[in-house]
């Protein structure tokens, strides 16, 4: 058939030789500079923290199952929701998306051998465990109890030790994410394989550019705020303490200047992942590539100028309220573009209902609910009523759980075969999806009504008129807690004994699927080759694609022979 297969050298290669040396398990516990090892380190570490944060969430919901504060008690309740939020944001969603998926996928997708700064990358990862340890230690002493927003003056009087541990933990985590942000920005702009223009990149990489820009610009401002808060706490200054002439509202501005962009840091990579996953399993090109790519940048820009919409009731001057309302509403446009483009991607496809696809479609469905409640929150007069109520809790969980976590699950199911070389069990994947989807909606849907009817957030005890809906919500939370079990066992079992995946089990076209599963140290055998665009579904015949695959395999064998030749 091809000239290659007539190559006499090839005949002598036994299939076993092409088999890859997989990473020995202990490599994942070392200071490895391989972006794939680091990516998996991030994912496993953060998943552990997700379980811890989830346990805290379950405790919080157990407390709220009845109107009286009879499970955790008042003080411990505040500690529990504070640490829950902090873990979920700083030790799960941000590092899992940016550190985990970003690390694993970006170099593979742009055809690079590794990140621009591999050692820095490892340093950034190894800051995560101490971040978590500091936070968990604070739970054992006196937990920080001023909420993850940690507004002064409350944060200055509710326990010095826990608060300071919280600050140190966030500063460490923040530094880690700035370093990662710098690394991604440089990697994507400078390390793309020759011939790959920005507009040839998979959309995940666009999302990661936007994410890194936000990280680089916004995170340092949070660090500044926390340094000042630390001085107030320990040295007796009064930056945010009105007793000494300081202004607590300045903290709120600095805090939200980071923490609103942080919301986009937590959702933009998911947008990117969904833009990868939907086309593969719908067997269709992504609809409106450029619109999706540029809308990420638009969201990045707008995300930096909307922070004060968290402060509509903070005594913010009128002109600010109006400006931030308009800017916030404007974000609906690029976000809408993405959602409609995803729907158009599904339209006319041949959808394969894999677990990854179920979570991907679940993401679109749930994220839209969060987006719509976000529209209500953006309007000043409407926000004045619902601000700091359970409506906000519902909204943020639809965005961060229904959005980010569904997206992470979709990503895990989708790239698990690439990362481990083995398939996850689809049956248990579906069980996992149904449990998560049902539990999630039972848990968070009623909260919309609770907030609108008058239940404030962050309360251990509440008006008995809200008892029924809270009880339903708690049942949902328990289902949600249970729903992680099938995933956990599925992942562990499949990693050890799952069906072998092969290079490209989903017949996907982006670059990471052209190498082996898991990929070798330098990612590609020989040089990466762009045979197709990342979304060229339906434009090549099956025969052509099979031919490409066989050619890649042949090239790989040749490359392997090249590397082995000097030794033999």
């Amino acid at each position: 058939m091809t000239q290659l297969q007539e190559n006499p050298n090839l005949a002598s290669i036994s299939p076993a030789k092409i088999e890859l040396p997989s990473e020995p398990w202990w490599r994942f516990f070392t200071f490895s500079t391989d972006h794939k090892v680091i990516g998996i380190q991030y994912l496993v570490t953060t998943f552990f923290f997700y379980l811890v944060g989830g346990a805290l969430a379950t405790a919080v919901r157990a407390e709220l199952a009845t109107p009286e504060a009879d499970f955790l008690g008042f003080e411990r309740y505040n500690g529990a929701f504070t640490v829950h939020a902090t873990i979920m944001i700083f030790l799960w969603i941000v590092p899992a998306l940016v550190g985990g998926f970003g690390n694993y996928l970006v170099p593979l997708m742009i055809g690079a051998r590794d990140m621009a700064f591999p050692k820095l990358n490892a340093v950034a990862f190894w800051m995560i465990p101490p971040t978590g340890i500091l936070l968990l230690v604070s739970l054992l002493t006196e937990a920080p109890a001023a909420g993850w927003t940690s507004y002064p003056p409350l944060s200055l009087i509710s326990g010095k030790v826990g608060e300071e541990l919280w600050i140190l933990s966030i500063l460490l985590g923040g530094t880690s994410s700035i370093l990662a942000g710098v690394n991604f920005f440089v990697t994507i702009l400078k390390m793309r394989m020759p011939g790959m223009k920005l507009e040839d990149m998979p959309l995940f990489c666009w999302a990661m550019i936007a994410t890194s820009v936000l990280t680089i610009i916004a995170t340092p401002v949070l660090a500044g705020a926390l340094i000042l808060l630390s001085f107030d706490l320990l040295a007796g200054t009064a930056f945010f303490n009105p007793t000494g002439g300081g202004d607590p509202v300045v903290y709120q501005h600095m805090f939200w200047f980071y923490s609103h962009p942080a919301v986009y840091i937590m959702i933009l990579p998911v947008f990117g992942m969904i833009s990868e996953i939907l086309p593969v399993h719908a067997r269709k090109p992504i609809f409106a590539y450029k619109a999706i790519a540029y809308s990420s940048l638009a969201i990045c820009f707008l995300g930096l100028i909307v922070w004060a919409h968290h402060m509509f009731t903070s005594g913010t001057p009128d002109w600010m309220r109006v400006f931030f309302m308009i800017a916030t509403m404007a974000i609906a446009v690029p976000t809408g573009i993405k959602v409609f483009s995803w729907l158009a991607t599904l339209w006319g496809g041949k959808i394969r209902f894999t677990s990854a696809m179920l979570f991907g479609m679940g993401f679109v469905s749930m994220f839209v609910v969060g987006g719509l409640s976000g529209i209500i929150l953006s309007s000043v007069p409407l926000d004045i009523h619902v601000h700091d109520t359970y409506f906000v809790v519902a909204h943020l969980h639809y965005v961060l759980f229904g959005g980010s976590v569904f997206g992470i699950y979709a990503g895990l199911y989708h790239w698990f075969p690439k990362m481990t070389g083995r398939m996850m069990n689809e049956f248990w994947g579906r069980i996992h999806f149904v449990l998560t989807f049902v539990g999630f909606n039972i848990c968070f849907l009623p909260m919309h009504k609770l907030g609108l009817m008058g239940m404030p957030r962050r309360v251990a005890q509440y008006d008995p008129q809200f008892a029924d809906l809270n009880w339903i919500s708690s049942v949902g939370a328990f289902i949600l807690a249970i729903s992680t079990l099938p995933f956990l066992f599925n992942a562990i079992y499949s990693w050890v004994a799952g069906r072998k995946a092969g290079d490209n089990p989903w017949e996907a076209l982006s670059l990471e699927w052209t190498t082996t599963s898991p990929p070798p140290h330098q990612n590609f055998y020989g040089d990466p080759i762009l045979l197709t665009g990342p979304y060229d579904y339906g434009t090549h015949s099956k025969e052509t694609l099979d031919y490409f695959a066989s050619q890649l395999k042949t090239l790989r064998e040749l490359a392997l022979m090249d590397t082995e030749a000097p030794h033999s």
Partner: protein
Amino acid sequence: MSALNNIILVAIGILLTIASIWYGQNHHLLPASAADSAPLFDSLFNSTITIATGIFLIVQGVLIYSAIRYRKRRGDEGDGDPNHGNVLLEIVWTAVPAVIILWLGVASLDVYQAINGGVDVGGHAHSGMAMAMEASSYEAEDPSYAYTPVVVSGGEVGQPDLVVQVQGMQYAWVFTYPESGLVASELHLPLNKRVRLDMTALDVNHAFWVPQFRLKQDVIPGRETHLEFVPSELGEYPIVCAELCGPYHGVMGGQLFVDTPEAFASWQEEQILAARPDSNALALAPETQPESAFAKAQRHRLGIPDDVHTLHRQFGSQSSG
């Protein structure tokens, strides 16, 4: 596209519209309303819910339809239609949300102005002149405006009939009526009178929220914030603290009573009588609070030179008897 398809599409569109409008009016998501600005909120909220329901149904409908119609059939290993863009469609779904957002922005602005009356909550209240001008420019706007301004039964916006000083502290509200010097732990307000609350906190941030009024304002130590409204329904309403203020944040509440003017007057008299000598209702002597320390520093900036001071004198003299 066949005629049948067109008919089906139109029918779906009509059904969607009906469903959205119906839900926008019948969502039962809000408590009763009791301030005269609350109907403005409700009407904006209902319109927003109508639009949101429409978008929700469209998105979920397309998702479910695609899941069924475009599922992979058994034995079909092929790819879908390689269509990767449609400029017209993209323009439509950029422009339509933009228009909706523009509408919502303008409507929100109008409602906000009407509810808030241009009272700058962050610091001082505007002067009466500026207020009157803003109010008139607001009325001069588009006559087809969806939210008919409610006729304010109380005084002019920015010129309240009653001012109440509100102090938030862990974990209680204290209300002071400067005219009578009355200090109370529950808030009584006369029906249909314009009320302004001058609020500050003694220790940490709190937020004053009355769900039935649809109004909320953070109460912040070291600065004075304001709320202005006209209670329009008699009754008893909860005052909820909506900003985390410590472990017992959930317990921090209060009652708000909207009374007839007569009932309000007699309540005030009763309270003043009850607050004579040995009443321990005023155990919270202001000297024991950190408030006075920073209040002094902030008073100048806030432009409320003497109010707080005289208040304290009244407050103090009453408690000391």
